[in-house]
């Protein structure tokens, strides 16, 4: 058995029974199984219940503003490619406030892993609808029912995210396997995690998800390399919800575009004003 104790952080402040505990376990297990030392990992999270995750395990942590983990993760990855960089959002944080960063980070294919704790609600601010709340979901800010939700899987495929998976916080085995794949993938890896919020979301509960999720791996004929099949799969939501790797495509990562990164991490480059002297000739 892997030793997860080295990944234990401070005491979680989540509600008892919250789906986030499953995510925490899965991340720790993935690290342990991949044998990644805490010091090699940088977790950049946003604000929300999800944003607290990094504090509860052991890693380098940058707890960002609401909606902004992706840009900081990108900046850090470019500065030091030797870091394993994981961005962590909630559905509000990632698909709402931070939606613009998300779509552009996917198309540019930055080499980071993106965990989205998708509880289909704003947890930390006490139960408003989120961009992924089901159609018609009633909250105090959506008394007339929420509009059509975002389909994160479909959007990710349309933005050519190079690894797109969905998993379920209630299935730690599956989730940790997905996280391992995501971390191992070179390029932007989205893992949308169905996460029950026991306090504010009384619709999409553990049992609601459990009755619906099925594994794409089971059956063994689903091919995540087929974009059209993936898009078609992304349309399934309701009685049956697929989990697993939905889309995957090997393509150049953004960081490979940058000539400066060829000589090792930027953090190790020398700071030297002297070469600038020759640029001055341009101004003579």
């Amino acid at each position, binding site marked *: 058995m892997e030793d997860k104790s080295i990944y234990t952080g401070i005491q979680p402040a989540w509600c008892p029974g919250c789906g986030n505990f499953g995510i925490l376990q899965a991340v720790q297990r993935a690290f342990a199984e991949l044998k990644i030392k805490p010091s090699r990992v940088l977790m950049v999270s946003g604000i929300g219940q999800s944003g607290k995750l990094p504090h509860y395990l052991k890693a380098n942590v940058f*707890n960002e*503003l609401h909606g902004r983990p992706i840009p900081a993760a990108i*900046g850090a990855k470019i500065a030091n490619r030797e870091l394993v960089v994981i961005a962590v959002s909630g559905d509000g944080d990632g698909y709402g406030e931070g939606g613009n960063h998300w779509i552009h980070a996917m198309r540019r294919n930055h080499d980071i892993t993106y965990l989205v704790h998708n509880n289909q609600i704003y947890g930390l601010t006490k139960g408003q609808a989120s961009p992924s709340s089901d159609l018609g979901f009633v909250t105090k800010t959506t008394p007339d029912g929420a509009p059509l939700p975002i389909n994160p899987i479909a959007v990710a495929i349309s933005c050519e995210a190079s690894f797109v998976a969905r998993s379920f916080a209630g299935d730690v085995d599956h989730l940790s396997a997905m996280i391992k794949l995501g971390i191992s993938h070179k390029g932007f890896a989205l893992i949308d995690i169905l996460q029950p919020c026991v306090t504010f979301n009384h619709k999409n509960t553990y049992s609601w998800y459990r009755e619906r999720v099925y594994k794409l791996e089971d059956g063994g004929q689903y091919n995540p390399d087929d974009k059209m099949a993936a898009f078609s799969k992304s349309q399934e939501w309701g009685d049956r919800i697929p989990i697993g790797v939905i889309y995957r495509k090997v393509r150049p990562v953004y960081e490979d575009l940058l000539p400066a990164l060829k000589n090792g991490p*930027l953090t190790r480059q020398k*700071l030297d*004003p002297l070469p*600038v*002297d020759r640029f001055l000739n341009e*101004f003579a």
Partner: protein
Amino acid sequence: MAVDLNILIGGEAGQGVQSIGLILSKVFTRGGYHVFTDQDYESRIRGGHSFCRVRIKDTQVQAISESVDLLVALNRESVDLHEKEVVSTGLIIAENDKYAGGDNKKIFVLPMSELAKNKAGNPLTANSVALGALMAITGYELELLQNVFKDHFKDNHVLQQNITAAVEGYTYTKNNVKSSFHHQVHAREDTHKIVMDGNEAVALGALAAGCKFVSAYPMTPSTPVIEYMASKENEMGLAVIQAEDEISAINMTIGAAFAGVRSMTATSGGGFCLMVEGFGLAGMTETPIVIAYGQRPGPAIGLPTRMEQGDLQFVLRASHGEFPRAVFAPGTIEEAFWLTVKAFNMAEKYQIPVVILYDHYLADSYNTVNRFDMTTVTIDRGLILGSDELNSIKDYKRHKITPNGVSPRAFPLAGEPLVVTDSDEHNEAGHMIEDAETRTLMMQKRMRKLFSLRQDIQPPKLYGPKNAGSTLIGWGSTFGPLKEAIDLLHHENISVNMVHYSEIWPFYKETMVDIMAHSQHTFTVENNFTGQFADLIAQETGNLVSGRIVKYDGRPFSPEYIVREFNKMGG
């Protein structure tokens, strides 16, 4: 005779007004003169009206003048609009003497298009015809123009056409100009000075300071900063990324800085608005970043290609909550370089965000400056733990409370210990807290950094007699016009001096208190409506200035304008 030659080139956007300005600046700089050249253009790519003013002196020059000796009119509108600025002994070079009613005695008709097309074989060389004519009229050395052409035109064929065009313009003018022009200038010894604008100076400063990461979203007037830096990616080992928006830009900048490199972003007011939350995040997480902030007139989109100093108070107070920051506002191109270097040093030494607050006027004006001596550039990264030091610490605390408030910095993966920080209020270890005691200590720790930072701030520059009846007070890009206004006033025997701030925050109070005690009248001179620097003085010293000279039409001050306003105020 002292040289003070003012050339105005006017035309449509797309006609190459700006490159004539740059070429002239280089031509006269290579001939040992000092040049100052500003730009005036609209927010469009073709058409409309744009112009640039080139001022050539035998001594240092850092401002334009209101009167024009030579007007090069690339179209009719340029005559209509600028004719009245031309001095009585001046000349207007234009294609057609029908311009301006047709009876303008000052017009020297130069068949630019014809010579370009028929003699040089390329209609696009009309501007070079004009440049050749300028050499002839001023009596300046044509070789120097040809020299500059060699560096300017990469394609040999195009180069030859332009050289021909210049010679044609030169010869035609020599043969046809009626009387000798009042202002003859001859090349002096080349002092090997260089010519650049404020954007270039900021970009070079950042490169010299070892900036390794830039993320930005284009916005006038600071876009050229990132464009220039991007052109040096290979040579400097630097990553430049154009972000999807400014929010992303500042947060990427913060992420890179946290990971361990010097990093910056560049923007203008509208973009900075979007960065304000990230600005506070840098304050809270004590992440050093540098922001090159080129002002333009607001509010909102305002006048996108014009100048204003309207954002000072905004920058001083931007973001909710309180945290230390530094704000520098270079007064000259040279300062733009050196203060950018300093910005990186202060950012890292105190682990704070630092803003270089300049404006369109400085950004887009060319000036003759000495080559910056790279051997005198110092890089002070502040307290950073190396891997050995770090590994000897059991529990590294990113936000350790220290006497001066600065915590030793470490980077992820520099050693085994973990680096943790949080946008929430946190404890020394970087984890979120809720209690009043830690909050209080952390606020004090962060704000305490201001005390040491203050020691690193240079006093404002004084010009003129130590004691004078009146004092003109300025900041940022008004330095040049203000200094020349003082000279003009001294010629009128007026007892006046000047104080100029380029390191604005933390505020260097002592000088101001002293001046307020000694000068009978104090006047701030600012390109904004309310007099924001005057507000700052009142806030910091409890003294109100006697008057506020302001201008908010999107155009820079001229020395003459300041003198007139000063006289109106009875200063």
